[in-house]
């Protein structure tokens, strides 16, 4: 896809954006840093600012209050970036579809902001940490 996206293939730095999650996906993401799975040996680090990130790890549905903040975060991330939608809530809304406070899904919001966004779906409730690693590997090999 080009030199910039080829540079994403190794040792990506990830910024975790929690929209309105139930926190289960978030603790599975933190589990990735703990001794059993230990993704830091691949060079994957959780960073503190979207401007340093190669990938966004988005969990949870986007409720009305969070939507403008999510859009700001996406704009702040340096392009090209990969958006991993981790969990059934981020992918397609899970059980919260139809709530008065959840009008749009995360991938609609991101596509509206940037039609060329690279979006990767990792379904599950919650996806096991092995699923996350597998999703990252598949996505980066496909780039």
């Amino acid at each position, binding site marked *: 896809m080009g030199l910039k996206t080829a540079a994403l293939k190794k040792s990506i730095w990830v910024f975790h954006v929690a929209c309105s999650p139930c926190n289960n996906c978030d603790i599975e993401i933190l589990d990735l840093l*703990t001794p059993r799975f230990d993704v830091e040996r691949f060079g994957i680090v959780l960073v503190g600012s979207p401007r340093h990130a190669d990938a966004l790890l988005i969990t949870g549905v986007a409720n009305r209050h969070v939507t403008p903040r999510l859009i*700001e975060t996406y704009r702040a991330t340096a392009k090209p970036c990969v958006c991993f939608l981790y969990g059934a809530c981020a992918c397609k809304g899970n059980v919260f579809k139809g709530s008065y*406070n*959840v009008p749009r899904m995360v991938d609609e919001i991101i596509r509206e902001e940037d039609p060329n966004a690279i979006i990767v779906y990792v379904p599950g409730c*919650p996806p*096991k940490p092995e699923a996350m690693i597998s999703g990252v590997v598949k996505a980066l090999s496909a780039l």
Partner: protein
Amino acid sequence: MKKTILPIGPYHPLLEEPEFFTFYLDGETVVDVDVRIGYNHRGHEKLATGLTWDQVPFLVERICGICSTSHPYAYVLAVEDLLDIKIPPRGQFIRSLIGEMERIHSHLLWLGLAGHFIGYNTVWMWAWRYREEILDACEKLIGNRNHYAACRPGGARRDVTPEAMDFTMGALDSNEKATKMFLGAVSDDPVIHKRLKNVGILTKEDAIAYSALGPTSRPSGVRWDVRESDPYDAYGASLDAKAWKVIVLENGDVFDKAALRVLETLESIYLCRWLIENMPDGDIDIHVGNIPEGEGCGHHEAPRGEVFHYVRSDGSNKPIRHKVRAPTFNNLPTYKASCPGEQIADVALITAAIDPCYCCTERVGVVADNRHTTLNQNDLLKLSVEKTMEIEKKLGMKSNLAKF
């Protein structure tokens, strides 16, 4: 007035959504606390009126992932209260067993994150490593690491096999050793004493006035534990058999809150062993037909406090009202009582000490005095770790903390 707004950046699950801690500082002291929540509001109560009675447990499980069985548990207790039925003993024991395994995993999770806040990352890695064994045991027992779906109105949803119970006993043994090691580490370390003792004290009167729950009020001397005051399922029998006890401490500071959680983990391990050894045979559930008109309340002691659900039925196949109240809702306003007068470097610890499950509630803004600055979670973490390094220097200890 200088105003700095930092970008969104939740770093870990304790403080999830976009956090703007708004501080007005008078030197280094906090003057008042204000909380703004709403980032996690997804509309469960309205959604529940559109689902049938047996679909609701799957919805409420997703209120919170850490206390994931507490909400369905309280909901099915409310429905069984409405129907006034008793479920078979094996179902009761299975539900209580999963509730206690969740308590162990949740307290170990908190312990790891509390260590991370002070700057002791090794505590984080070790606590979460031992927690993985509990999650493996849950997966063998009931099918999933986290969203267990163990409860349904009328009993338990799945049976447990003897092999799974043997595996669980092994996991409990190794966790008991690890928890005793953590207890020794927490009570002996002079740096932890200096950081946590007499910080963020919640007095007994304040705990009662705010109706604080669980490990937020029990360290202040308030003996409120639903498993004891309104026994349900296997808890009545286990208390009579003296398999475990309720822990109450006195000072109400962050040290007591940490010690209480470690002691409660040990009590849960003893209770899980008793439940597995005394697991009765028989059915795990009874058939529940139509739900007649009426109302019911159910409450369960989750790792963070009491979870309360209320249901109202008009005889149809959907609840007309389902009220959910998670324990952090009662515990968050206690910041107004425990934060003022404390230093800003301690605020991170005090906010973490109530173990907020922000998916039930949200974001804190602390108002102090003149200068208006907005700090995010990383800044608070940095301040907290710097304070630990200063204390280590004063005590003449070599700093073991990684460069932050």
